[in-house]
């Protein structure tokens, strides 16, 4: 009997099939272990790593931009082991060693965003595509932050936001690749509302002047919610274009509107101009509805307070951080910054510095620059020592949850820098909220195939 040999048996087909599956599916994973490390945007292959600083060096928020730049340069120096090390020694836990990031010396490129969202986006694109920036950071406007973090999500590059206070940044416009250390308008409302109630009572009529873009809108909404919950009535909410210099046409209607509180949802130079002009219009000397007329600036910084001079005395607002705090982190940062530049750091400088260190620390903990791993290292990360007490980088919306400061313009400053007093430090639990209230989707963590 002759055995008939057939070309294919069921067993052979199965064996070949399995081998094929293993060969095409598993083997590449074995042979290219760690290959993802080479296949993402701007993977640093040399002995340096480049950060992209997107700074508003001109325009309405230029003062904040200039202070941020100083902070970034200081942070990069500290990461490279230069200077006194700043906050590296007090950040806990920390993986930072003061030898760059993963042993690579840190360098930077920068771009002037001119306080304009389209210019900020173009600058970030250039720094990613031409200069090879592994991470983009900076900005003093929520308009810029939202525009740039959208771009960074598309290009697979992490964005560590600078000063941005709109609820939308980590709300409806949040992105997997975007992270915010700064607080937001909702938290300002929660922190400031009770103080306004204590100081000015519950029977007040408020008139809002609001910068006409995402930040102004969400701050107006948050402060309206907070003050109306106290029993205040909102008389009017008027939008003003970003970069307005002469507010007289917006201030004259306030005088006879029946309002007894003016709430200025402005920031930077807009705030300096609107506040000083409101005071020139005699609003702080007025009586309305049988009460002293009051002005409130829900978000205020020492740079703005300094610019507004006498006008800011006694005015309430909120801040992310203040250089005069007496915790070890704030003392260390103020000492480093003051010694380097001869003035105390602003809240914009503080958030810029902290964001740089937090990114570097996340890379060290992840052991790679590969963005999805760095994102994992940042999401849900608990740390302290950076001047805001115990802080959580919340995984659900990439918003840092920490305490918020209520501040007041100093009535009797002892120096040109002593312009704000911290009235209250509102604890982290009080300003924590459900991330679902602002909606939005973080999106995927996998990087784009090209950048």
């Amino acid at each position, binding site marked *: 009997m002759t055995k008939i040999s057939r070309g294919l048996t069921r067993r052979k087909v199965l064996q070949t099939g399995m081998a094929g599956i293993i060969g095409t599916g598993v083997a590449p994973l074995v042979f290219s272990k760690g290959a993802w490390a080479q296949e993402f945007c701007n993977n640093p292959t040399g002995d340096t790593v480049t950060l992209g600083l997107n700074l508003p060096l*001109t325009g309405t928020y230029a003062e904040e931009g200039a202070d941020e730049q100083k902070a970034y340069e200081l942070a990069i120096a500290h990461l490279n082991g230069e200077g006194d090390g700043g906050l590296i020694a007090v950040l806990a836990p920390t993986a930072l060693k003061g030898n760059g990031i993963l042993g690579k010396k840190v360098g930077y490129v920068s771009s002037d965003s001119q306080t304009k969202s389209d210019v900020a986006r173009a600058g970030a694109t250039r720094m990613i595509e031409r200069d090879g920036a592994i991470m983009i950071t900076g900005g003093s406007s929520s308009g810029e932050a939202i525009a740039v973090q959208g771009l960074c999500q598309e290009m697979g590059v992490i964005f560590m936001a600078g000063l941005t206070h709109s609820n939308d940044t980590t709300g409806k416009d949040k992105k997997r690749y975007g992270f915010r250390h700064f607080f937001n308008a909702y938290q300002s409302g929660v922190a400031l509302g009770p103080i306004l109630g204590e100081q000015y009572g519950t029977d007040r009529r408020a008139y809002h002047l609001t910068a006409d873009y995402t930040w102004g809108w969400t701050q107006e909404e948050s402060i309206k919610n907070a003050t109306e919950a106290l029993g205040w009535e909102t008389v009017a909410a008027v939008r003003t274009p970003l970069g307005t210099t002469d507010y*007289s*046409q917006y201030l*004259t209607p306030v005088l006879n509107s029946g309002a007894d509180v003016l709430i200025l949802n402005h920031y930077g130079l807009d705030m300096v101009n609107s506040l000083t002009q409101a005071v020139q219009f*005699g609003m702080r000397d007025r009586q309305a509805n049988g009460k002293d007329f009051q002005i409130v600036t829900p978000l205020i910084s020492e740079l703005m307070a300094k610019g507004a001079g006498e006008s800011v005395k006694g005015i309430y607002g909120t801040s992310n951080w203040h250089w005069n705090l007496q915790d070890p982190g704030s003392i260390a940062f103020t000492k480093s910054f003051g010694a380097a530049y001869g003035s105390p750091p602003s809240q914009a400088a503080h958030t810029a510095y902290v964001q740089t260190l937090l990114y570097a620390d996340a890379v060290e903990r992840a052991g790679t620059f590969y963005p999805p791993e760095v994102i994992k290292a940042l999401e849900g990360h608990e740390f302290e020592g950076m001047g805001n007490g115990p802080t959580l980088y919340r995984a659900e919306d990439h918003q840092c949850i920490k305490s918020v400061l209520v501040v007041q313009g100093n009535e009797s400053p002892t120096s040109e820098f002593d312009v704000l007093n911290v009235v209250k430090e509102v604890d982290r639990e009080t300003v924590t909220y459900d991330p679902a209230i602002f909606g939005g989707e973080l999106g995927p963590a996998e990087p784009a195939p090209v950048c």
Partner: protein
Amino acid sequence: MFDVIFLQFLNGLDKGAAYALIALGLTLVFGTLGVVNFAHGALFMLGAFCAVAMRMLLTLETVTLDPEKLSPWGTPLEVREPLMQAWLGDFGAVLVNYSVPVSLLLTIPIMLLVGIALERGIIKHFYKRPHAEQILVTFGLAIVAQEVIKSIFGPNPLPQPMPVELRGAADIGAWLGMQANVITYPLWRLIYFLFSAILIGGVFAFLQFTTFGMVVRAGMADRETVGLLGINIDRRFTIMFGLAAVVAGMAGVMYTPILPPNYHMGMDFLVLSFVVVVVGGMGSLPGAVAAGFLLGILQSFASMNEIKAIIPGIDQIIIYLVAVLILLVRPRGLMGRRGVMEA
């Protein structure tokens, strides 16, 4: 409601005064030299920076380090001593307090020189060239001036404080025998309006009641005939260019407490002022002044909440809307003359 309308009217006068002052200078140059001067906004800006420079000089300080006291960052505390007060005592303090009006003394000669140098150095070479080329060269000059100022003073606005005594608001309602504390308006803005009115009146009086002004007006009407009479009309026109620069510079100085000077402030005003000149009628001095106040007042009323509730955003476009309407009805503007800027 009267108080609201009155306040907006005051506000309009204040804005109109600024527009009218710049438009007046533009028209002076156009009416005398026939040059469309896009560098005029830059002259306004240069004037404002004369005030900045003057304040810098008046507030020079000596800085010494006090090793006994430390700053919050651990370095010896800087002790600053104002030089002007050390040299001149109370008078020095008064000079610093009134630095803005004092700056006018510096601004007048500087702007006169700048104006004359500009006209003799560059602009005179473009008298017989087409208006398009004049616009290009003067626009270029404006950009150069901006960049020079930016490189010296930086890109950020530099707030200039007004004198302490003039920082508050004037209770105009009480002045008029009405209820106190209802119609109040910033004192400095009232001063700016009065200053503008005096300056505009002064320019008109100079042109109307002096021999120099009479010759200039004659030259504006018929340059050739005045030249044939043996009068050096070019020299007078050069002085008029200098005078226009002085008017723009003085307007810039007095505006600094209202708007912190920055390098592009001239460009912001220039566009509006050209609209004012066109609405008033090219070459017409009364037209420029009238249109300046008209547009300022309309812009102010358009920003009332009641108006914006009906037409949202009207305050941003009212000036251009009115310009279009007026030019449709009167193509030469409110007081434009036949033959000016017409082929």
